[in-house]
């Protein structure tokens, strides 16, 4: 916010956009739309973040079966191929929020994911422009904005205006984000619902389906390092 002029209006757009996706799903804990007025009327938890910038406590579980491409070919469900997967993160980002507060400004105001993004795109031979849907770990709404920057969907520092322009909205945005409603509005299963949603998007069976989705990005935890990311694809080649 200090560096780039990101505002609470931008946080609100993340929360409202994810809520709009969530209420279309029967499994979602949140069933009503979130209005801008409701967002700004919510109690402040830790300034500048209010109630709707946080996840909700949830009980739940998701199982994922990982196998070889050869075996997956004959299974009942169409596979989602792993194009790339990486663990890592900006070296000083994790400690920067716990005990070492000296990360350079542009690392401090980031999600710590930039090295993971670079490796993912290199491994897969794709760019951000090739990603059709992004399932970004959303424990706190500002981190969604910073991941949009770090994964190259918009320039660094421009994530706020980028979401304000509707770019993360399903189905009209340039990169629909958390089409399931995310941790913020569907359920907080520590990111596993993001993996499930990515698989459903690739299979073409998602409730809020991105038409023709070929490549889905899933990220895990801007948090103590390592953080992680995965690219899933409809095609295995």
């Amino acid at each position, binding site marked *: 916010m*200090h560096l780039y*002029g990101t505002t609470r209006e931008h946080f609100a757009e993340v929360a409202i956009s994810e809520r709009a996706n969530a209420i279309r799903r029967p499994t979602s804990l949140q069933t009503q739309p979130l209005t801008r007025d409701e967002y700004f009327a919510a109690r402040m*938890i*830790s300034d*500048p973040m209010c109630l709707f910038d946080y996840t909700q406590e949830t009980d739940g579980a998701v199982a994922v079966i990982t196998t070889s491409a050869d075996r997956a070919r004959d299974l009942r469900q169409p596979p989602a191929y792993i194009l790339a997967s990486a663990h890592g993160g900006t070296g000083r980002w994790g400690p920067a929020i716990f005990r*070492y*507060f*000296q990360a350079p400004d542009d690392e401090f105001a980031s999600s710590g994911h930039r090295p993971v993004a670079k490796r993912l795109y290199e491994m897969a031979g794709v760019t951000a422009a090739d990603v059709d849907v992004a399932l970004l770990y959303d424990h706190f709404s500002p981190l969604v904005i910073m991941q949009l920057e770090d994964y190259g969907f918009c320039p660094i520092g421009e994530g706020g205006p980028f979401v304000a322009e509707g770019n993360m909205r399903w189905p009209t945005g340039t990169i629909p984000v958390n089409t399931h409603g995310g941790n913020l509005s569907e359920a907080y299963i520590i990111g596993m619902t993001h993996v499930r949603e990515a698989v459903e998007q690739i299979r073409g069976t998602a409730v809020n389906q991105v038409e023709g989705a070929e490549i889905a990005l899933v990220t895990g935890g801007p948090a103590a390092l390592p953080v992680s990311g995965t690219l899933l694809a409809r095609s295995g080649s």
Partner: protein
Amino acid sequence: MSGEPGVFPRCSGTPVPTTPPDPSGKPPPRTGSSHPAAPTAGRSASRRRRSVSCAAPRVEWVELPGTGTVYSFTVVRHPLARMLNEVVPYASGIIELDGTQGAGARMIANIVECHVDALRSVTASRSCGNT
């Protein structure tokens, strides 16, 4: 505490003489540690046995003026534990210490003797870029 609205706080400190650690091994108050070969890259506000930039085991103690600017802060309004019921709202911030030669040695601290709503207005003016 200082830092003008709309201006991102920066250290403008002048170099300070280094002081050796107390022979007893106990560092003097308000000191930081730095790697002698990379004094600006590795300066840290905490008492460390190793350089924060390269993990070298050699550090030297430097005396700092004990003042700084607010790098970032939050006003906590939700008591995370019962014992904090009477404490909220309170402000916690990351303070960039003066005299760290642009390395930005920082420490986390509660910001006291300052009305939290006054702090919040500083955040708002920064966020908007002016006003």
